[in-house]
């Protein structure tokens, strides 16, 4: 119990110290662009726990969720196919390298032309950025399937779907998760960026609106909210990872002994 308490203290200590420092450093501030933290926090509640939660925060999260899920499905499917077939890999690799090198934000103007300024465009921007780490890590993971385990599957005639499910996807899962983690942080960035162009709702849109309307404490509170969302999503990610990769962390713990 005390160990858990000590860990909790460690987790909370630095954020608490930083907030306290910010609070006192900004307490007497009269600078219009750098309001006291007390005012930002007051604005936080008013700004986000009202209609904006439904009008801006949830749509943003829904687009992120959809885009991220699509990127995972496309990345893993394409990654497994590419990892299993050397010919497909040789064909796709140059194109993939090119596409991966294109920064997703520059796709926004193009995607506006193709998909309009609605949700489709924003989801596509998120997909176009998130898919690469998932895809490339899946390819690597699939290629590194252990030879003895592959022979075991062959000699026990574990083929087709069973092989895919029990051998290929599971052996690649540590790397798929690594890709998914990178994709999540890219997704959050792209969620905001996609809403800064030609949007009428969303977190990115609202924060830019506040800045243009000189609603400075509200603008700061939006940045705080984004940070908190990032933390919350990474906690959720860790819980899921713990379930999916329990065996993997178990092996690593055994090997460290």
């Amino acid at each position: 119990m005390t160990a858990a308490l000590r860990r909790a203290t460690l987790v909370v200590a630095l954020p608490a110290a930083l907030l306290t420092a910010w609070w006192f450093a900004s307490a007497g501030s009269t600078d219009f662009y750098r309001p006291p933290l007390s005012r930002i926090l007051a604005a936080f509640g008013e700004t986000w726990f009202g209609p904006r939660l439904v009008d801006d925060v949830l749509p943003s999260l829904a687009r992120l969720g959809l885009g991220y899920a699509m990127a995972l499905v496309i990345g893993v499917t394409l990654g497994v196919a590419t990892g299993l077939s050397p010919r497909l890999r040789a064909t796709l690799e140059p194109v993939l390298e090119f596409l991966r090198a294109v920064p997703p934000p520059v796709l926004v103007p193009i995607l506006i032309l193709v998909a309009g300024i609605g949700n489709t465009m924003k989801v596509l921007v998120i997909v176009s950025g998130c898919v690469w780490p998932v895809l490339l890590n899946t390819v690597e993971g699939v290629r590194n399937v252990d030879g003895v385990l592959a022979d075991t599957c062959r000699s026990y005639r574990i083929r087709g779907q069973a092989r895919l499910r029990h051998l290929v996807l599971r052996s690649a899962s540590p790397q798929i998760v690594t890709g998914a983690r990178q994709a999540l942080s890219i997704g959050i960035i792209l969620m905001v960026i996609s809403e800064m162009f030609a949007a009428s709702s969303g977190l990115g849109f609202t924060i830019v609106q506040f800045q243009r309307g000189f609603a400075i404490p509200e603008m700061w509170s939006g940045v705080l909210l984004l940070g908190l969302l990032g933390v919350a999503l990474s906690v959720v990610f860790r819980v899921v990872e713990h379930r999916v990769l329990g065996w993997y962390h178990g092996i690593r713990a055994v090997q460290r002994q």
Partner: protein
Amino acid sequence: MLSVRGLRKVYDGHGRRVEAVGDLTFEVADGAFVCVVGPSGCGKTTLLRCIAGLLPPTSGSVQVCGTPVTGPPDGLAVVFQEYGRSLFPWLRVQENVELPLRAARMPRARRRPLVAEALAAVGLSDAASAYPWQLSGGMQQRVAIARAIAYQPRVLLMDEPFAAVDAQTRADLEDLIRSVWQRLGVTLLFVTHDIDEAVYLGQRVIMLSAAPTRVAEELAVDLPDARDQLTTRGDPRFTELRGQVYAQIQKAKGAAG
């Protein structure tokens, strides 16, 4: 019956031709326990992989139960030396044993008792819900043996299965495999570099020459069927047979050098 006729395997690659197996011909009768020994690097594993259908021979043929081997044959199981890499680390012990049966679409009601029996036969009923990496090396190899037992093969191949476990565990596993063989009536081909092990386990010992491998000599082990680590190994006949095998292997090594 298992029959190997004129088997030859040449590895060709990177400008180097290696004739691993020269010309191998031998037969193993139904229900026999045959050990294959040879100096290290004599292509024992290559031979075993050819029989298992994991490696196509350069020329010659292998027949398992009257059917020519072109891929992993039906009713044949392999126990690999690398127990740590031949078990699925993301599956529990019971699931590992069960997977080949699931892949063969055996109904749950039929496979459950087979799995339970196989685990009981190797003395691992208590470890059914553990992960392989939570077990010692010897126990992991028992899981691999249980998986082979549950599969109900007609032919069982073992590739130096006890090479990586300590001496005491090894003695236990040797007795285990003798009792499994006697109970199941399976045809067993056991590859090893350990002369004592070959004589202790087999009804017949096939001695291989150095690469390019041929059959140097065959020896019938005329020890009583009930074997025991103390009395069998103390038997003057055991010492005699062991001496014969040893002399033959030395000769094979000498001819190679």
